[in-house]
Each structure stands twice: as C-alpha cells, then as structure tokens.
C-alpha cells in the first residue's frame, strides 16, 4: 500500500496577513511543511487543512505553483475550523494533506486572452492562477481581472492589487457607492457587462458566491461567450477530499475529486444542486 491518504503532514504557519477585518474577516496564511518537503500542485487545486482538535477544512491554494517557498491560503472566518485558524499565530502548527481536485486546464488556454471575474473571497482560488499566467506571460494573450467586494474594506489582496495594475488590466468594484471610491459601483456581473470583454479567442473564469457566479455566467453569455469558454470553481461541504465520504457530489461528480473546476459546458449538464 502507498501512503495513508487520511494522514495530514505537519506544516508551520510562516506568516499571517490580515486582509479584511470586521464581521467577515479574511486572513492570508503562508505555510511550509515542518519536514521541508515540497508540495506539487496545479492551479485551482485545493488542500485539506487540519487544526488538530477542531477538524479539517478544504481550502483552495491561493499561491501559484511558481511560488516554491510556501503554500498560501486565504481564508474567510466562517465555521469551526476557519475560526480556529483565525485564532492561530505565526509559528503554530497545522496539518495539510492533498492536493485535491482537477485544477484549471491551463495547457488548453495557451495563446488565449483571459478574463478573471472574482467576488469577495472568490479571488483566492483565482489568485494563484493570476500569478501563474503573469509568471508565464508570453504563453497567454491579454489578461484582465474584474474584481468586486461589498465595500472597499472587504477587498482582499488590496496592496497587491495596486501592483497588479502595472502588469495587467484590473477593474475593481464595490456593491454600493462610498466616498473616495472612484472605480465602478455595482455588482461584478454589471462591471463585466460595462467593460464588454471580447469573447474572441478568450477564456473567462469566475469565482465567488453562488449568486455572483450565476449572474456573471449570464453576463458572459450576453456578451456571446460560448459555454466552453466559461469556467468556474464549485465548493461544497467536504470531509474526505478523495471521493469517498459522499457529501460533496453534484450528480455523479464528487467536487473534491472530479472538480472543483468546471467549464459551464460541463456544469450545466449536471444537476443544479450546489
């Protein structure tokens, strides 16, 4: 038998960055394995994080495979395990197993222009992808990020987004007008319609809350994107991460193993139960 698939490996939290405060706080954790082992993964894959004594949670990896020194996770405080993670400090030990899931089909996207459309914490699964495509810039066409949050205080990777604007097109939005905000006001889907990205030789990837994903897909369809040009990532409650515990399925697919990345052409054929 190979290695035990349920055993997490101890990893140290190297650094914690507070992204968003308030009642829906988000923190970014950089980690590395205690034994110094490497962790090979693809953009879009997830890892199962353990807080021993609390349990496990499946989190998308927000670093890119080009970042060799750490694994990064950006986490919204919402349940038992994520609350415990938010209470941890640099130097603390967590457990990590994975990587899990299919990841983005980056090979198929080479030579295409790419639109990233994210909302709230939904920028985390896209973040590694943004950095991967930037790191292999010559392989892709123009890159555009459309990202929105409820308020300017809810925007993740705020400082890094400013840097990103020097390297690619970035359109930000907040849901409602606020003083000092001089970019788009409205939902991400409205911002996508406003910016009218061309479907020509394009791929669009959207990630965020379920309602945002649905409205962005509709906006992209209105802009004549084909189903196969639109990608999203799905999340569901997970325990095992390897297609056995039975709870994250959408039809015959286990999101942990067969997802989380789907083209709309694939996802629309599955039962709409997610």
């Amino acid at each position, binding site marked *: 038998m190979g290695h035990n698939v349920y055993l997490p490996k101890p990893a140290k939290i190297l650094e914690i960055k507070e992204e968003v405060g308030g009642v829906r706080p988000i923190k970014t954790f950089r980690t590395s394995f205690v034994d110094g082992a490497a962790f090979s993964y693809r953009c879009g894959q997830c890892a199962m994080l353990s807080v021993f004594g609390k349990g496990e949670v499946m989190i998308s990896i927000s670093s890119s495979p080009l970042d060799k020194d750490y694994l990064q996770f950006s986490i919204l405080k919402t349940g038992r395990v994520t609350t415990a993670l938010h209470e941890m400090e640099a130097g603390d030990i967590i457990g990590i197993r994975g990587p899990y899931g299919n990841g983005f089909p980056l090979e198929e996207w080479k030579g295409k222009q790419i639109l990233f459309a994210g909302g709230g914490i939904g920028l985390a699964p896209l973040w590694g992808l943004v950095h991967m495509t930037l790191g292999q810039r010559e392989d892709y066409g123009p890159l555009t990020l459309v990202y929105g949050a409820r308020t300017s205080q809810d925007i993740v990777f705020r400082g890094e987004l400013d840097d990103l604007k020097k390297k690619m097109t970035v359109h930000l939005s907040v849901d409602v007008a606020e003083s000092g905000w001089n970019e788009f006001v409205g939902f991400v889907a409205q911002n996508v319609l406003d910016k009218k990205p061309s479907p020509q030789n394009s791929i669009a990837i959207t990630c965020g809350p379920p309602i945002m994903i649905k409205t962005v897909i509709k906006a992209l369809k209105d802009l004549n994107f084909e189903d196969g040009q639109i990608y999203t990532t799905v999340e569901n409650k997970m325990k095992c991460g390897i297609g056995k515990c039975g709870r994250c399925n959408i039809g015959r697919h286990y999101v942990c193993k067969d997802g989380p990345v789907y083209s709309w052409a694939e996802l629309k054929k599955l039962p709409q*139960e997610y």
Partner: protein
Amino acid sequence: MDKILAKKDYSRWLEKLGSYRIFAPRKRDDVWNYEMVTAPDAERLEDVMTAVPAKGIVFPQREPFFEFAETDDGTRITEILPEGEPVVVFGVRPCEGRAVTLTDDVFGGEFEDHYYWKRRNATTLVGLSCGAPPSPNCFCLSVGGSPHSKEGLDLLLTDLGKTYYAEALTKKGEKLVLEGQKLFTAPGPEDRKAVDKIQAASRKKIRRELSRIENVPAKLRGMFDSPFWDDESMSCIRCGICTYLCPTCHCFDMADEVETSTPLLGKRVRTWDTCQFPDFTMHSSGHNPRPDKASRLRQRINHKFQYFVEVWQKYQCTGCGRCISLCPVGIDIIQVVEKVRDHGA
C-alpha cells in the same frame, strides 16, 4: 473446490479456526446481528437477515484514524491502522457479498483507503445461500443478484438438510476448508443435483420484485426537479436507518475527539454518516444544496439507481430489503423506484 460438511461437524470446524476471529449471526433482544462467537457455542449456522449488515466488520461504524498530540518536540501524529487480524464471517447473505464488491470499488481506486483494505484483506466471507428468502422484502433477483450469488464471497455454503455443500470460491475460502480438511468429504453427483434443485426452488420463493428498471437511470435524469420527491419524502422522519443499515452505503464523517486540551491530545475518528441528515451537506455559511427531505430522498435514490450506475455501470443496491423492513414510516424503495419507472408513462 466443492466439498461436503456434515452439520454435526460444523462446530468442530469452527474449533479448528482458532487463528481467526469468528463472526456469525446471533440473536439478542429479538434482533439478529453478526457477533463475535467462540467455537463451542456455535451449534449451527442461522439462516437469517441480520439488522446491521456485515459491512460493519470491514467498515466499522467508528474508526480512529490517528492520534494527535502536542509534545515538547512539536505536534506528533501517530497513525492507528487496524492490525488486520484474520476474521471469518459466517452466514453472510449473497446480497451482502455482492454489496462488499461495491464498497471495494468505493474504497479502492486512486486513493486507496488503508483502513478498509487492512480489514477487508484479512476477512474471509462465508456465504450461506438462501433456501428461502430471509426477509419478506428480499428482491435480489431484480437488481442482478440471486439467493445463491457467489460475488464477493470466499466460500458458499448451501444447506442440504443434514450437510452443507461447501463451494470454495477463492484462495481464502480454500484455506478455510483446509483448516478443517478431515471434516470435509467429496460430494457425490446427487449432492450437486440437490444444490441445483434448492437453488432453482429458492428463486421462486422471493416475494418481491422490482422489474423493468433498465430505463430508471435515464428516467431519474429527467425527474430531478419533479414534485414527485416532495410527495415520496413526506413521511420521512430523517432517522437515517435506510442508509446506516444499507450494506452498500458508505458515507462517513470525520471528526476530532479531544481527550485533553492542554496539552492537546486526541484522535481523528471516522464514523458512519448519512445523506438523510440536513447537516450532511450544509455549508458553514448556512447554504445547503440539499435543504429538504425531498432533495435528500432524491439523493439516496439517484445515488443508487443513477449516479453509481453512471460511474460503475451497476446499481448500488443488492436487494436485501433492510431499508424497507426497518424504515419506521414505511418508505419502500421498490415502490419509489417503480413509480420513477412508470413516471409520465
């Protein structure tokens, strides 16, 4: 390898199996279940349908995965693998043998489940072919099985009155016969004829049928949004019996059990879980993709008769009838699937 064992020698055979832990159906408080037995008290093999299926012997209801401990040297994780002691289960119904082949599929593959396989590889399943259906709700014939199916079993015994006809089906089964080889004799032609006669007769004794289900997977695909599921699930009290006692259901939870918090010491533990509980799929945000009884009954039926078929090309049901007999409100999988079959016809 076919052999004959006199029934009076059954308990002597068990005495020869001292290197195994032996399970067989036992009655306690009027309920039959597989229990560990010692050779001297096992007089004969009981021809019954236990409440809890044999799956619990290879896939226990509660199973520690590892221990975690905070020590001066950091966090220590200690794997707790089962020892894999040899186990024999006697009296396994053919439908349960088939069910084990389905859990083998689930726990195998790319991510092999060491806990399951450590037990599974050390377990010998001795089936007892059904002379008469052990439950009024047996319907194995309708889902590709039979009262004398050999799938998943290592040895199949058929009750010939004063003797058992023993068919060793695997190396593990042969080993079991060899452990007591002096007790076994070669069968005569009349013995095989008797087995064939019993098997032909037993097929006719099955009282329930779920016929013409070839189109059910396609039918289910088209019924996802039907109000049918509201009607069928109305009486469900979400107790989960249908899934806990199903020999093919494999869903589980994983949780941390803390023994002491300073310093931290505890175990990560797997327990059976069920798609019939609301929090099975509930996100920490409160969003629930399967928020009502209708969507959860639909998941149970769809998993068994559509999704599993799409992945593995077989039904995830072997017709044991436990979910029918033991449902406290009388939800009957045969009737539900028949209605699906006839829906819109």
